């Protein structure tokens, strides 16, 4: 089974902190994604990466950055956390274009 593992299920951070969300996949997938999930808005793509050290902005990249130094690991960085970044963050991976995505369990981040 494909496994996408997010380092934390729940996080509470203070406004202005630098926050790292980590994601690891074990199926040698080329593509990795970070989505944000909010009630009534569904999943919105923050950033994705189709290869090591490559990244592309999604629909809502403002306030976020990403890092992909190794194929299996994709990190989401909140440079200076704000309360409007309180949300559920979902990492996903996939192989090739147009293919289905496998999701991690999600990280519920609260910024206070």
């Amino acid at each position, binding site marked *: 089974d494909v496994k*996408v593992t997010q380092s934390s299920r729940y996080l509470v951070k203070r406004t202005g902190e630098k926050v790292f969300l980590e994601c690891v996949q074990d199926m040698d997938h080329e*593509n990795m*994604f970070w*989505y944000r999930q909010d009630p*009534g*808005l*569904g*999943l*919105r*793509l923050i950033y*994705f990466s*189709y290869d090591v050290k490559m990244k*592309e902005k*999604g629909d809502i990249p403002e306030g976020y950055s990403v890092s992909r130094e190794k194929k299996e690991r994709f990190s989401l960085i909140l440079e200076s956390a704000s309360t409007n970044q309180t949300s559920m963050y*979902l990492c*996903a991976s*996939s192989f090739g*274009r*147009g*293919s*289905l*995505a*496998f*999701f*991690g*369990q*999600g990280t519920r981040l609260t910024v206070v």
Partner: protein
Amino acid sequence: AQSVTQPDIHITVSEGASLELRCNYSYGATPYLFWYVQSPGQGLQLLLKYFSGDTLVQGIKGFEAEFKRSQSSFNLRKPSVHWSDAAEYFCAVGASRDYKLSFGAGTTVTVRA
């Protein structure tokens, strides 16, 4: 740009009754279509997918979906709902030339006894 609309925010259905969730997409070429389910506190699990071929696709947990190109729809159905089907359901669209999927806003299903 591709987009997905799930017109129903919330549906309540009795256990044993049938369920249909609507999904409409907008995309210029032949889409790849997916339905995912998310139980409370969990990540998304794939129910079924459509890439090509037979427009009626079968998935896990007794779900099926039908692709109708003329209506730009990919509705999800289940003949008899179980209490464990209470969850949030997401329709998603992708394409052979795209890396990413676009998701609808989701439909929450409540099952009453």
